[in-house]
């Protein structure tokens, strides 16, 4: 058992434990904060996977934006969400069952997956992941533009679509959030 494995196990345990807290914490604000713990745990996993860019993005977007949004919403609906009354077992039991089944199914798939046991290949020595990712996302010729080798790996269209989706979400959120009265005023 090497140091890396130990690190992974710690991170995994931390992440899973926090995840369990997220779904079980009574106080929503705690749940949200546990979510942040989960997110940082996942960030650590990214670091273990040597995806440094995504580590930071995870922190910026998830912790910095999404989690804060959650906390904000929780605070705005404070009266309701101070305590989330435990739902009846009639609700929890089937949910638990379903989740267990899903877990079983997924594990079965993983076990059946031939590549499951493989170890990571060495990182390409001269891989500038950030630039490569940028090229893959933004240049019509894909990472080819960056690496000078031609293989079809361009995500311009999906990326643009995603940005449009974000814009739409923005507009929709603003529209939903403004009250009728304010809308009539402006």
């Amino acid at each position: 058992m090497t140091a890396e494995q130990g690190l992974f196990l710690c991170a995994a345990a931390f992440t899973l434990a926090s995840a369990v807290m997220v779904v079980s914490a009574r106080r929503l604000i705690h749940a949200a904060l546990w979510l942040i713990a989960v997110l940082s745990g996942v960030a650590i996993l990214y670091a273990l996977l040597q995806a440094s860019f995504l580590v930071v993005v995870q922190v910026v977007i998830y912790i910095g934006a999404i989690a804060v949004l959650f906390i904000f919403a929780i605070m705005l609906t404070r009266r309701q969400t101070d305590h989330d009354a435990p739902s009846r077992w009639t609700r929890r039991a089937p949910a638990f069952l379903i989740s267990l089944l899903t877990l079983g199914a997924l594990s079965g798939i993983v076990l059946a997956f031939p590549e499951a046991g493989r170890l990571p290949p060495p990182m390409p020595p001269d891989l500038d992941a950030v630039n490569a990712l940028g090229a893959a996302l933004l240049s019509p010729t894909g990472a080819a533009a960056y690496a000078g080798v031609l293989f079809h790996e361009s995500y311009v269209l999906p990326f643009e679509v995603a940005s449009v989706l974000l814009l739409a979400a923005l507009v929709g959120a603003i529209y939903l959030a403004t009250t009728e009265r304010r809308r009539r005023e402006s």
Partner: protein
Amino acid sequence: MNFWNDPLHFLAEQLTAMLSRWGLPTAWITFIEFFLGAMALIVFAMVLDIGLVWVERKVVARFQDRLGPNRLGPFGLFQPVADIIKMVIKEDITPATADKFLYNLAPVLAAVAVIALWAILPLASTIYGADLNVGLLYVIAAGALGTLAVLIAGWASRNKFALLGAFRMVASLISYEIPMVIVLLVPTLLAGTMSLRGIAEAQRSIWFALLSPLACLIFLISAIAELGRAPFDLHEAESEIVAGYHIEYSGMKFGWFYAAELLHAFTFGGLLAILFFGGYTGFFGLEKLPAFIWLDNPFVQAAVFLAKAMVGYWVIMWVKYSLPRVRIDHLLAFNWKFLTPLALVVLVSTAILHRALMEAPRWQYGMALWLANLVIAWITIEILRAQARRQRRHQRAASQRQQTAQEQTV
């Protein structure tokens, strides 16, 4: 490699040699070294912080035409120590209804968020905690942590003022992060990297502040907002919400917030220096001259950097103590309707010129960028003036209407 050229690695090697002589496994050695490095960094930051307390108090005094602390030690140099003692011996209250864990977590988080920034600040070309290739993003991430701290503090202390303060803080933080991120892209663009060290190195010939003064200005403004200092300190507006999110905090917990704020301000001074004023590098490639070769010595570089950071910090203080507080809606309107569009314009123009003039001679490149900024600034001012004129006209019309109405009634 000797101590004077590359102190950190020198020390590290010495330590490695020693520890391996003791026969520790390499993994442990690296762990110990990193741990010691982190400790050293934190200690350095904290000591600096103590100094900052004194600086702040003195400078404030001068701004407000007072003497400031002058009893304890020469120039009241020991005043901060007294402050710390006072804070430590004060009663440490935790409100009964507060959310204990979070309430105690918040100040720590606040301090951590700031100290985390120091992990990537390059004091000199060879003295830095880590040289991330996504350094700038890291800065933003740390800022997000700060937001979180404020939010938790406000929520956990179960006090309506605290919650209000937290709301205001988060509102301003989230909104001002946008122009900040946008203008952070300008140095990234000019230097072609996100690592702070790379950006500093890229300015050996000319500071980015000269290539894109507008970006520098916008960064300064949004930095002040990010710090939540006057004129953007609505989250602790004494006159409205008593002390904002740290209303319930006392003793050393408050001390943490206080220290965090000071260090944060100084850190942003440092960031300003790195991003726009060449950081630890000398002045316009002066160090290339044989006479000034000593400028490249890490210790000199560190001194230069700290001096620049101090200047930035001083400017921030200057703004804080000379401007009145703005209203919350003005704050947000200023950001969304003015700063963000301006930042976008600056970014786009810089990007276009940068791409167009890549092969052009450096001086043309520089002049073009500089002139572009000038033109943008001029247009902006013209627009603002036109709007102001329109507003004045409306006001005049309104007042006249009122007058006529009164006359009719009379």
